[in-house]
């Protein structure tokens, strides 16, 4: 018996193929239309395409830079300076946001009514005001409301706040510092191996090793020993008012301060909510069960509570960190030379708008794709192994 012949429009497989060809065709045609228009327009306006402009001299100054840069450097180098500034503000922002957000999140759950309500108000207010407005506000405070360098505020000795930014006293450069950093890194690596060894030993023999205390004392203690061995240099490089500005020490520009402060306050409100939800996600019974087994409070936290709440916390937390990085692009509005700001200047000078916007998108896509790659790796590692 022969199977009945199905007309092709009733066969789901063939229909799917036709549908996909149609969709891709429409998208392709649209793309073709837009691209051909663009090419015609570019030709008409006599704009050369391509990334050749990256090697040309930029002829604009950048206020702050981590690497050497001058107006004689190329556009490519200017963009690298911008990217490094983006990384700088994001990195500082992420570290402080994690600290502040965790504190606020824990405070939200505090048994202390006052502390809990205050952090609730903080979270609600910060979340409900656009980040850009917050940046403008802080920039106005730094730029308009703080006094000139001559009348700089000095809340703590060695710190000066004025409308040119915040100047800190920093330890004067000394050869000891290099060795201290090296020893610090070595201590971190060492702690990692101690942790592995301790875990193996515990699996074999059941004996516990005070990993946390040992690693902390290594990480803090070893650089301290080096510092003492070099004769404990304590000389500080204190900023001094000379002329109209501070010289010496470390000065953070008002743009950087406003951007960092705005990003930190805005994002830490979201991080606090994430942390609160993560802590609440671990049921009370878990803690009670662990205590009933006779575990010490520190072990209850380390072995039972944290592993479970981190599983809930980490994914939304990474997306908040990514948001902070993306929001740092608003630096362009207050004049901090981040990547978007430098790219914008480049676009205005060279007219290479397509390449400029493409570079902005590419940089942020790299950030977000690498973050999501990390997330996938973490999720696979931390996923619940169910029966």
């Amino acid at each position, binding site marked *: 018996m022969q199977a009945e012949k199905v007309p092709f429009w009733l066969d789901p497989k063939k229909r799917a193929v036709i549908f*996909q060809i149609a969709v891709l065709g429409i998208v392709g045609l649209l793309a073709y239309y837009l691209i051909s228009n*663009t090419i015609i327009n570019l030709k008409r306006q006599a704009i050369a395409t391509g990334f050749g402009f990256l090697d040309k001299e930029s002829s604009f100054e950048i206020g702050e830079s981590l690497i050497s840069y001058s107006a004689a450097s190329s556009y490519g180098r200017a963009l690298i300076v911008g990217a490094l500034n983006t990384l700088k503000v994001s990195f500082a922002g992420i570290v402080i946001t994690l600290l502040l957000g965790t504190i606020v999140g824990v405070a939200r759950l505090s048994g202390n009514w006052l502390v809990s309500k205050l952090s609730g108000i903080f979270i609600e207010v910060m979340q409900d*005001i656009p980040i850009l*407005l917050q940046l403008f506000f802080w920039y106005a405070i730094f730029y308009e*409301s703080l006094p000139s360098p001559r009348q700089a505020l000095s809340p703590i000795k060695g710190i000066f706040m004025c409308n040119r930014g915040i100047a800190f006293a920093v330890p004067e450069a000394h050869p000891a510092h290099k060795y201290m950093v090296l020893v610090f890194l070595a201590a971190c690596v060492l702690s990692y191996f101690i942790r592995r060894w301790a875990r193996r030993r515990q699996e074999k023999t059941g004996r516990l090793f005070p990993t946390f205390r040992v690693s902390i004392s290594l990480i803090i203690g070893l650089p301290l020993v080096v510092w003492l061995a070099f004769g404990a240099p304590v000389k500080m490089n204190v900023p001094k008012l000379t002329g109209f500005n501070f010289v010496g020490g470390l000065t953070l520009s008002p743009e950087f301060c406003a951007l960092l402060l705005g990003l930190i306050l805005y994002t830490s409100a979201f991080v606090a909510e994430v942390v609160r939800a993560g802590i609440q996600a671990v049921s009370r019974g878990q803690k009670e069960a662990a205590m009933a087994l006779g575990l010490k409070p520190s072990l209850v936290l380390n072995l039972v509570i944290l592993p479970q709440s981190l599983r809930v916390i980490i994914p939304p937390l990474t997306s908040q960190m990514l948001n902070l990085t993306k929001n740092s692009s*608003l630096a362009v509005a207050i004049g901090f030379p981040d990547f978007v700001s430098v790219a914008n200047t480049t676009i205005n000078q060279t007219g290479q708008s397509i390449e400029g*916007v493409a570079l902005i998108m590419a940089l942020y896509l790299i950030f977000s794709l690498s973050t999501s790659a990390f997330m996938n790796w973490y999720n696979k590692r931390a996923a619940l192994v169910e029966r």
Partner: protein
Amino acid sequence: MKPPVTHVGVIGWVKGNLFNGTLNSILSIATLYLLWKVVPPLIRWAFIDSVWHTTGKACKPAAGACWSVITENVRFIIFGFYPYDSQWRPLVAMLVLFGLLFYSQNRKHWKKHLVYVWIAGLFTMGLLMKGGLFGLSPVESTKWSGLPLTLLLSVFGLTAAYPLGVILALGRRSKMPGVKWLSVTYIEMIRGVPLISLLFMSAIIFPLFLPEGVTINKILRAQIAIILFTAAYIAEVVRGGLQAISLGQYEAAESMGLNFYQTMRLIILPQALKIVIPPTVSILISAFKDTSLVVIIALWDLLKTTQSVLANPEWMGFSPEAYLFVALLYFAGCFSMSGYSRKLERELSAGEQQ
């Protein structure tokens, strides 16, 4: 027998909530001290020493806040360049919008007629803003500015992005590799880049996409960028809703002989979209906040009108006051929406548990 006086009333509450344990007592005292240091000077600045109805010059010597920067310029901050005599029109349009939002808040009104009410409302708002009919003088969209523009960008942005987001979410869950690949690429690309890059694109590159002689005005271009951006986020939210629908629902629909469109329209989407209403409200909140970014491509939204007042030499230096006022407006909008979202979440989850 009555409980001891230290366990009830005000003393009992203070003892139980502020001074239960050494650490909490220290925390409470430290917090109270901090509040004592911060709040009274702030109140003094904002209310007691403040100036309310003066010129900018009279403000300069005042020790407190200069709220005159708001009271004297409030109509420009809110309505921008909209013709002065016709500013009642955007005002009525905003009132219509608030009325619509208030009406839709009640779940009893979530029926088919709500769609028609919204279409009629949006049409009325458009007519009021644009004019040209019923004896209303036409107003160029280049003059739309201030709060109406902010609301317009966010409300139309979300309304137009929603259907696109649902289509993208369905595309992402499709079994056809071509469609799925396309949707995933779009969603991940858009979610990976900051909104500002899309706005730059709309401002600088978009004109290049169009054939010679065709131009689209700046507001519409920014609106398109916001729609494309929001759609990707809505798609992810809707995908969450789709994933929460059990496989049995699909199978049941299939065994009833429903085709894909019937299954989606009658069985899956009504359930999935109901689940995702609270996160959708969060997206509306972010869209409302995100519209402030159009300031960077020089659209005259609420933030830009405020800045232009501050650029006036008479009012220079009163930025904190002006920004606090704008922050208050945004806060009022976002706070009411997030409060509503929480209420809705409670109501819906209560419905699930029955």
